[in-house]
């Protein structure tokens, strides 16, 4: 059976990178005694699939992973057992079954929502102006240092939404798919804003027209749409 897991990552766990998380989950699942399905071949490894990677240092309220078990188990029981084996900072929010044929998380997720909060918040109005200015630009170029030199990329098409929230926090919905990723820090620095600030990933979504679906909605019998309400939700 396939189970989809939604969890949050906070506290010291934010310092764990993608590879470390992979090892951590495998070990927690083994400790929990879950009947993991293993891949075949020379070097069998448990069948786990993760959503889009999260940069080190970023807190998240909505991370996902799928796992495959060789037995049908009660998701609530799995949740309880697994939570008991997780180090501080990782909290299971949902564990629910998904159909065997359900597409992988990385194939469906295409947007990530973030909240940026400053240690010393800038002026609310000023922030508003900056956000509007960015949204009104047709092209927003950023340079990305890579292995073979720095590349220039237009991130504007990937900035889906940008809104100033109370207490001068910034909410953004950015592209996060196999086609491309816009990083919250890139948006902050193009807006001409400086730190120190804290980034939280508040959601991962599947865009369907104007609607945003959370991965947990996909498996539910009744698909709940979040409407345009993302930025209103937090």
């Amino acid at each position, binding site marked *: 059976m396939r189970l989809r897991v939604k969890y949050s990552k906070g*506290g*010291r*766990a934010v*310092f*764990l*990178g993608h*590879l*470390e998380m992979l*090892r*951590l989950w*495998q*070990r*927690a*699942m*083994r*400790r929990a*005694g879950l009947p*993991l399905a*293993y891949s075949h071949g*020379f*070097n*069998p*490894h*448990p069948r786990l699939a993760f959503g889009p990677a999260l940069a*080190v*240092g970023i807190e998240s309220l909505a991370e996902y992973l799928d796992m495959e078990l060789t037995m049908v188990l009660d998701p609530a029981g799995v949740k309880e057992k697994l939570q008991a*084996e997780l*180090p*501080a*900072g990782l909290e299971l929010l949902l564990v629910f079954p998904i159909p065997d044929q359900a597409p992988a998380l990385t194939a469906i997720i295409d947007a990530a929502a973030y909240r940026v909060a400053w240690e010393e918040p800038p002026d609310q109005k000023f922030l508003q102006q900056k956000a509007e200015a960015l949204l009104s630009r047709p092209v927003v170029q950023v340079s990305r240092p890579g292995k073979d030199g720095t590349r220039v990329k237009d991130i504007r098409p990937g900035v889906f939404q940008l809104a100033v929230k109370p207490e001068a926090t910034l909410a953004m919905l950015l592209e996060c798919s196999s086609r491309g990723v816009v990083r919250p820090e890139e948006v902050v620095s193009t807006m001409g804003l400086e730190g120190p600030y804290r980034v939280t990933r508040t959601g991962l979504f599947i865009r369907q027209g104007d609607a945003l679906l959370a991965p947990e909605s996909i498996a539910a019998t009744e698909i709940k749409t979040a409407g345009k309400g993302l930025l209103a939700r937090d």
Partner: protein
Amino acid sequence: MQDSDWEKLLTRVAKPARYLGTEWNAIHKDWKENPVRMAFVYPDLYEVGMSHLGLAILYGAVNERPGMLMERAFAPGPDLETLLREEHLPLFSLESHRPLTDFDVLGFTLQYEMSYTTILNILDLAGIPLKASERAPEHPLVIGGGPGVANPEPVAPFFDAFLLGDGEEALPELLALVGRLKKEGAINDRRRVLKVIANLPGFYVPSLYKVEYNSDGTVAAVIPREEGVPERIVKRVIPDLDAAYFPTRPIVPFLEVIHDRMMLEVMRGCTRGCRFCQAGAIYRPVRERDLSILLRQAEELVRHTGHEEISLTSLSTADYSRVEELARALAATYADQGVSVSLPSLRVDAFSVRLAEAVQRVRKSTLTFAPEAGSQRLRDVINKGVNEEDILTATGEAFRAGWQAIKLYFMLGLPTEREEDLLGIVDLARRILDQGRKLAPGGKPAVTVSVSSFVPKPWTAFQWEPQDRLEVIKEKQKLLRSHLKGPGLRFNWHEAEVSFIEAVLSRGDRRLSKAIVAAWRRGARLEGWSEYFNYGCWEAAFRETGLDPAFYACRLRREEEVFPWDHLDFGIAKDFLKRERRRAYEGRVTADCRSGRCTGCGVCPGLGVDLILKGGSRDSAVTGKI
């Protein structure tokens, strides 16, 4: 340190997972309820230190007891070191982020001579005076343990005390004593504290001993400075491992560490008696664990760690008398949980290969053997106890079982070595390669020859022997390099300079401490990593301190010479070593005492212990002695 400050530091380093302290099974004990506090400091990066079984054992053994706690600290990565120095922050423990000066005791493990400069760096980063004599009452007691204590003299001035031998009982004893002295308010009288420690069995307090030298620079004597200080310090031994503490809830690191697996210690010690091997000498006698205990410990380890591999550890795991039963049982029990079994050290024989075959489902990896020398004559000199036939049978079995790559370890510069011994390495490698081509047709057999330089070590039959001079080692490496070419052959060698410094430090005396300080001041640290080792630091350090490294590394020592470690007692009789040395020159092998004939190394009668073998299908328990 404030948590927020600490977190800010972590956002600025490359591998913050090294410093979190929140790994699974990490223990955070309450500071108020546990008034005796120790930090175990591993003088290398996290990835190395967390692969060390000794740390897991002592961490558990101390934290299991009420009233005392142990936290961990490691050498910071160079990026964190820079930040700490820039921000004037002290090095901290992982569990509570407290500066190391908050602890009563700091325990360093001396695994390797090349970590000595890192120890100084850590003391300096912690704000603790390097020299024990310069420390104030409020500074922690700095103690050392591990194999380096076989001869701790080069680092003696930096330590308040050393522990010889097994630590799982001795260390809690020391901490209980520290607790008592603290309660009595006597802990600030450092002289008194040290004298009390010096009278705990197994503890050596170097400042209570003075070293006298002969005019030729050799040691004349190491003697107590005052009355009431023991003349000889005898190592501690846990007589029965079955009764000893063993950690079945070890910390599971987040980061990928060097040995990222469960460790099941099947036995301690080795009976083979290779004449160059210090570990084989100082960890005697062999004490095996009971099979049923090991199976239970394995089960607990799997349940509490979630690791994907169990490693059966010891100096020579294939020698464990019930190894086959154990390995097969573990492989069968845990296969469908995705847990594999590994044997880190294999003997060069067919039995070992069959054993590896039985447990290893993945055979893409390399199988490693250590014939150590290229000719039978030289293998007899070092008492390796294998012949060419054993080696070829073993590698043949390996190819037949599907392994494609064989790695062979050799030592260069062994006593009595001649050119034909070196060419024997080449010959052996080629014969194994040919064998692979025949036995695994269609495959791509590969033979890697890995050569380290011989380092004469205290407590071995070769402790009197000179190390080859650097130029000679390099010439020998060149000779091998020129011959070990061609498809399927690979050649690796260790940096000769590292082995040279190792040789200087391993048999050195207290005067060398000056050179260690000088090398550290010039930037030496993390020298176990080739990217950080800098021979120039050491050359300059010797020049500056007027010490001749060749005096320590390359001099043939007289048989009656007093060694800087002669006042320490690891149970091995010097006469036995002299006899072994003579037998080496004669090319006479000495039998394994596991086979039932004691070869008189002195350990069992000297320490009042016994070989503990658990019998099994292959060997019968050892009873007879001469």
